[in-house]
């Protein structure tokens, strides 16, 4: 059951999955498949206040807290971007805000994704992670209260 897995376990799972691919093309194809499957965010969230700044493609991200756990939904107009967010959501969604804040997201380096991202695109990736962590920060406060 994915719900019971920790962030670290999910990261390890993705790292294992990616180790099966021997070239960047298969990795991209996998990311593209994930992107095509990513559930769309509700139309009401596709506006500027949910937009992640710093990406060349448009990215919208929202998070909701349920029973102390944070769940993300996102969308993008570019498929590869969607695939990458899908990985981030897979790892972070359904966890306590505090655990999300502590996640080092090391799997991104391990799966060799960053080396295929130009600095501009890596900035976009960092912007997405920052936005996700900002949600966690916002809700971790509420949680404590």
């Amino acid at each position, binding site marked *: 059951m994915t719900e019971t897995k920790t962030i670290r376990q999910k990261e390890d799972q993705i790292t294992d999955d990616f180790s099966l691919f021997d070239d*960047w*093309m298969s990795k*991209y*194809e996998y990311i*593209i498949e994930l992107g095509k499957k990513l559930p769309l965010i509700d139309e009401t969230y596709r506006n500027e206040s949910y937009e992640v700044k710093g990406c*060349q*493609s*448009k990215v919208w991200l929202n998070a909701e807290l349920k029973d102390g756990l944070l769940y993300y939904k996102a969308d993008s*107009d*570019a*498929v*590869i*971007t969607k695939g990458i967010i899908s990985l981030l959501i897979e790892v972070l969604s359904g966890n306590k805000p505090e655990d999300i804040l502590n996640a080092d997201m090391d799997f991104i380096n391990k799966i060799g994704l960053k080396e*295929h*991202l*130009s600095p501009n*695109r890596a900035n976009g990736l960092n912007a997405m992670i920052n936005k996700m962590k900002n949600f966690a920060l916002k809700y971790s406060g509420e949680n404590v209260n």
Partner: protein
Amino acid sequence: MDAHTSNIESIDITKIREEFPILLRKISGQPIAYFDNAATSQKPLSVINAISEYYETINSNVHRGIHTLSEEATEAYENSREKVRRFINAQSSGEIVFTKGTTDGINLVASSFGTNVVGEGDEVIISEMEHHSNLVPWQNLCESRRAKLKYIPVNDKGELMMDEFRTMINEKTKLISVVYVSNSLGTVNPISEIIEIAHSFNIPVLVDAAQAAPHMKIDVSTLDCDFLAFSGHKMYGPTGIGILYGKEKHLESMPPYQFGGEMIKSVTYDNTVFNVLPYKFEAGTPNIAGAIVLGTAVDFMERLGHENIHNREMELLAHANKLFSEIGDIRIIGTAENKTSLISFIINGIHPYDTGSILDNFGIAVRTGFHCTQPLIEQRFKLPGTVRASFAFYNTFEEIDRLAAGIRKVKSMLL
């Protein structure tokens, strides 16, 4: 006669490519196919070497020393200015101002000349296809002067609508600033005609020639433009150096843009007498190395010859157009009759970012996004961006074949 073959022979491509060391680089294990020339061109060895040669032999500050090095640096600096004057056929070297680049030149005119001539209720005309560098300075000027900024519309082929332009001019029009060659569409605008029309109403014209300088002979005397700005780094020269040409009568009438050393004749605690042209507009220690080496880039282009460069690039464009038309599902943005060697496109149903990301993994460098013409791409053409492949003479037919194959692969992966 086979024009195709004869033109290739007039520039020995294999040999000339050896002058560009960066073209030997591999990206993702493959030889780089560099198609981002409209953003910045690669540099030949003569340019690269001239930079170190300057620092190794004559580095010193210009215009002020009495020692030999300073005199030599000053001489090289002024020789380069003279080369540029000749290159664009200006009347005097006082009309050639060294700037940081096109953006800097346009900002200079907007701040100095613009503030002089544009007042409340006046109008400035630019076009819908301007680079942000020839749009934002005017937006800013018009806002601060409470003036109106008007845009010459662009048709679906990416050409300026000249009939509309004629109706936009009135007694309130104080300045027209238009791009010579569009950086995102490749369109070569009828700049002579625009200047002629403007001048018949006594309106000065600034020409943004950033994308024209690498591809065609610029002749400011024939064009009769009032101002013209371009950058060194797009025409095989170093970054951080550019040229603003201005007619002497305008430059004389304009207040300085920045204040400090170099631009003064004498200073007392009470006031300052400004220096003569062009130094009035070159405050502070200039980019001496950049300015000198821009002259080397001019030498390089003249050695190749504008006609040879043009012919070669038109062959590359024709080759790319032919291959693109065979791929299908491609929409080319900018299909003007008169174009430079640039193709802006989208693959139907695929975000430009996805296309660019995958092509990069094939060692193919293209640009994706708005290309600093966000209103044109987003508001005029209603697109989230385009993929832009811009060719320089040193690109090869084989590289363009790889681009076409890469696009086919993108389609198979994403559609």
